[in-house]
């Protein structure tokens, strides 16, 4: 007997009889709830992300990057890409790691938890892009922000590779306190676009 059949037989014998009928109570908040952008900013800052609220996206990005070199996903709007940047066209890991930073868009953000989610769309790029450089600049529009986790799950497509990011890389492994800065980007900047620019 194959191990698959063996395991399935063991399970059926362990359970005995019919599949269990279990009602799942969904009395928790599932939304939609009003979005509080100030709460998002507060939660992002609490986990050591730097937040820029602005209507000048290119200028803000240039200010953060300074003279550093950044990589950009193929679909990032051209006006956001600082001069001297490298577009990802199947760049090697070493090339990406050598960049000072990366600029991406986002798919969804969650105010209550201070989380941004990337779904590898063309303006966010391959997962490796936002992983190796030490600086990640993420441009976020207010209409991408939801209040709670259930609303974010509802907006996302599980068929895409997803990366949920809440603050810069951190660890709780030393005496169970949060310390920022391990393997992922140690600097996370969120450019939160003010309403008038988004319109």
């Amino acid at each position, binding site marked *: 007997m194959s191990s*698959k059949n063996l395991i399935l037989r063991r399970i059926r014998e362990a359970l005995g009889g019919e599949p269990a009928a279990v009602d799942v109570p969904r009395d928790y908040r599932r939304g939609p709830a009003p979005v509080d952008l100030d709460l998002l900013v507060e939660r992002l800052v609490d986990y050591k992300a730097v937040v820029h609220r602005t209507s000048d996206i290119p200028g803000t990005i240039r200010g953060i990057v300074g003279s550093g070199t950044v990589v950009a996903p193929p679909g990032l709007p051209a006006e956001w890409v600082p001069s001297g940047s490298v577009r990802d066209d199947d760049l090697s890991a070493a090339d990406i790691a050598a960049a000072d930073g990366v600029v991406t868009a986002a798919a969804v953000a969650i105010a209550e938890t201070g989380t941004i989610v990337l779904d590898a769309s063309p303006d966010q790029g391959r997962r490796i892009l936002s992983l190796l450089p030490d600086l990640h600049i993420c441009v976020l529009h207010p209409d991408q922000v939801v209040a709670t986790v259930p609303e974010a799950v509802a907006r996302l497509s599980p068929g895409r590779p997803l990366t949920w990011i809440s603050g810069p890389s951190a660890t709780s492994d030393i005496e169970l306190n949060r310390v920022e800065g391990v393997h992922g980007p140690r600097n996370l900047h969120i450019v939160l676009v003010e309403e008038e620019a988004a319109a």
Partner: protein
Amino acid sequence: MSTHSPRGVGHLRGDQPFPEAAKVALANPQLRRNLQHATTTIRGKSGRVIAELPDWQELRAAGSALKAYTMGNLPRLLEQLEEKVTAAGGVVHWAADANEANRIVTDLVHQTGETRVIKVKSMATQEIGLNEALEAAGITPVETDLAELIVQLGKDKPSHILVPAIHRNRSEIREIFLREMPGVDPELTDEPTELAAAARRYLRETFLSTKVAVSGANFAIAETGTLAVVESEGNGRMCLTLPDTLITVMGIEKLVPAWTDLEVFLQLLPRASTGERMNPYTSMWTGVTPGDGPQNFHLVLLDNGRTAVLADEVGRSALHCIRCSACLNVCPVYERTGGHAYGSVYPGPIGAVLSPQLTGIKDNPSLPYASSLCGACFDACPVMIDIPSILVHLRNQAPHPRTEKAVMAAAAYTMDRPRLYARAQKAARLSKLLGKRGRGLPPPLHGWAASRDLPEPPPETFRDWWRGR
């Protein structure tokens, strides 16, 4: 037909019974200070972020029901997962026990021609002793989680589900790094940020040059074939993104029925686990994505005694565990003994119910007694596993010696009868027989007394005081 996890492989059985192992731990004041500091910190953090959610109890109820539904429908959901992962370009393997899982992973690594793998922290691969199996086959496993790295470099054993090096404080970690980490800066201090930076430098090149990774999984969604790994440091993202080949080993109980159900567990896990609103990084992937991440994906579904747990109607809810480790952090026994005393990769209250069921009670008979039944674990569990009830249930399968049962029955009889009890109290007060705090009990009761202190008999019983008032 229930089959437990086989002997001679993996890390579910200790070398000595819990009371003996605990004695060693209790004699180590540094260990107790480290544990007390860490568990106090995490309890405070977790309590604060849980209090922010108005619907924590509703989320717990949903999480509990979702897990019960999953267990009740496991065959259908597992086959659905296999179908979805396969359709998305992954390959699914089934492993009846630790030996088979180790063989599958070792063969897969051999097929790539590589001799080194990077690993994301995974309880399942610790449980089956995968690192030892890989090393025996000439493959070097590199643990990339900071705490796992500390344990691996220190030639130590993990002592906590979430933070395997919880028993080490910052200065001990510094010493391990200075001693064992090639190329480390000799000026390294014990500042946590510096220690983290040292790990970053040490592992960077390994991440970039290793072609095979091994991971566990926090969740697998049957409906979509999506896998999720929840982490903090980014080492998980490295392992899940950079290599050509990814091998994920997952217990069959890690399933979640539908994509939507993640909305419950992604709220429960980080707040109960690290005490964060959300952990820094969560990666989700479905099979293979062309041009992004590993192009070869293997999923190994592991039984290794889980179906034996499932066969016990009372004990099966131990399989609902999402490995948050909240029950360890609130347990008065764990806080004093630490994780090594439990002898299994699953320590603390959840380990005391899970390990004996995975191995069969004969191989872990002392663990159901490693608890005061105070119930803090039940309150802290984000999926409401009634750990105290399972402990009592398992104690009935591994009863204490008959003499002790007789004494307990006599004590219960006496306490039920006021006059007898009053006389017994007097006797205790007068008696010199017990010696210092009961340690001098005659055989066969001296064994019972070895790990318990009798309270000093008061100079006057409450009854005497009441009468003479």
